[in-house]
């Protein structure tokens, strides 16, 4: 079976200043490889500074890698830092949905922009797509005339989902998108995530530090430490039988 997302030897280095004119290479990610099938969820856990968010940015195309490939259903979309210019297959959801939405645009306009720049739908098709996406994430059609400040936190998160879903992506990257929410809203959003996965076969890359949630919804886990994969495997086997010291320490607390 063809995996949906395959990452091979992905590395990323940053230049940092060392002295007045010298520059030093700082490796954030070293040789990350994993693959994940359709309708599965992979969770990335690790401490701060372990390169979790950098990995998310690389996958979503917000930053370029130094070496390594990202393959989506067998097609190379990033090869040694050269990115195939398509953002519609891998979409990202940010931690603070209130801050990542444009306060000056209505929800409908914002979703319309996504479609205008990425598809060749005409006006009617776009309106129809917006309506169907909004109802898919549990919002009303009328909500497209609202501005972001008129929504509550849980609804904003749904809007963020709508923005990611509207281009029918294959992979969704969630950077701490659920763990910062209040418990009862989090339950709703997790249910929405699971429902979407069941219905459309989405693949999730989930970055979080909420371990019990990871155990509940993910199929595979990657444990990162200082840019290296210290453990990678099926969720149950990693949680039941952690091999490395770092994983044991993460899971014990």
């Amino acid at each position, binding site marked *: 079976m063809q995996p949906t997302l395959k990452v091979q030897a992905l590395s990323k280095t940053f230049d940092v200043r060392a002295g007045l004119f010298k520059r030093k290479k700082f490796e954030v990610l070293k040789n990350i490889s994993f693959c994940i099938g359709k309708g599965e969820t992979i969770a990335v856990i690790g*401490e*701060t500074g372990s390169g979790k968010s950098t990995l998310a940015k690389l996958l979503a195309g917000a930053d370029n890698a130094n070496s390594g490939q990202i393959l989506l259903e067998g097609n190379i979309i990033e090869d040694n830092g050269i990115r195939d210019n398509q953002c519609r297959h891998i979409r990202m959801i940010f931690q603070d949905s209130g801050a990542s939405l444009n306060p000056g645009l209505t929800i409908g306009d914002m979703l319309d922009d996504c479609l205008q720049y990425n598809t060749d739908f005409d006006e009617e098709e776009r309106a129809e797509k917006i309506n169907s996406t909004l109802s898919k994430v549990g919002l009303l059609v009328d909500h497209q005339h609202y501005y972001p400040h008129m929504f*509550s*936190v*849980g*609804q904003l998160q749904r809007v963020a989902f709508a923005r990611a879903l509207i281009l029918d992506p294959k992979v969704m990257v969630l950077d701490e998108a659920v763990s910062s929410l*209040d*418990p*009862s*809203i*989090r*339950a*709703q959003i*997790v*249910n929405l995530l*699971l*429902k979407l*996965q069941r219905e459309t076969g989405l693949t999730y890359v989930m970055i979080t*530090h909420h*371990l*019990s*949630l990871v*155990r*509940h*919804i993910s199929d595979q886990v990657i444990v990162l430490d200082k840019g290296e994969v210290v453990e990678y495997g099926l969720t149950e086997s990693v949680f039941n039988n952690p091999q490395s010291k770092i994983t044991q*320490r*993460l899971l014990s*607390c």
Partner: protein
Amino acid sequence: MQLLDVRNLTIELRTSETVIRAVDRVSFSLKEGEVHALVGESGSGKSLIAKAIVGVLNERWNITADRIHWRGVDLMRLTPEQRRQTVSKDIAMIYQDPSRCLDPTAKIFNQIAETLPEVARKGFFLKRNRDRKDRVKALIHKVGIKNHEAVLDSYPHELSEGVCQKVMIAMAIARTPKLLIADEPTTALESTTRAQVFRLLKSLNQLKNMSILMISHELEEIADWSHGIHVLYCGQMVEAGPTHKIFKQPRHPYTQALLKSLPDYEQGLAHKEPFYALKGTIPTLQHLPIGCRLGPRCPQAQKECVVTPSLTKHSGHSYACHFPLIKEMK
């Protein structure tokens, strides 16, 4: 002996049109050496209650209470100056956002030194300086920061969130308060630092017999080591009682929903199975429903729920609901 006894605390915000009641008649009490938790979602008024006890809310908020007794003294009846002295002697608070609550223009050493109780008023000034340095160093070691020289000599923006949080805790425990109010002390931290902070608070509670009022929106964080839990929803106390009782048998639908949204406590939930979730969202403060504020979202709601339910007490476990989940055993 009751350390803190709050009866019918109401906090209102006056706006140009109406009066918004953000906290509605909340009562609770705290004994010496106990750890209590205030749990609720954002906007349920947890931080307001903490700030009202310490007395740092500004003029716009209207605070009324039958009593806020601190070791038998009613804080509401003291003059501001007396109240300030009482509070600063015995109560300390850790605020929500450490890097924003520290002074950005002063070094950590000076900020901690400022909170120290009149360190060695006596003695020659050289000795005083040395004493102060030693005390600050000891404090910062106590909260688990090892490289004290680098930390003490830096500004808050140079430190990570976790270290800032520990500095805040060091400042809070500098005067060995009787009560520590911790307002979401671990939201900004990741799991290993969070565990460290909890271990620190736990040891302070056990060794120094310090009472702690924890404010959090995660039930599971505080479940293991708190003596009592108070669950708030939209400014109303919905359930309160000893931790084990609440976990064993929640009476209020909201508490039940909170417990069921924890994968760890919900037995028999298969992998990737949906959680139990209440429908709808938290109402905004401008549009609070009358009566029981959970009403529109509550699965058990009936006609009677438009009247605010009174608190029913049953062997230390109290709940405010017209239709509690399990009928009492006869």
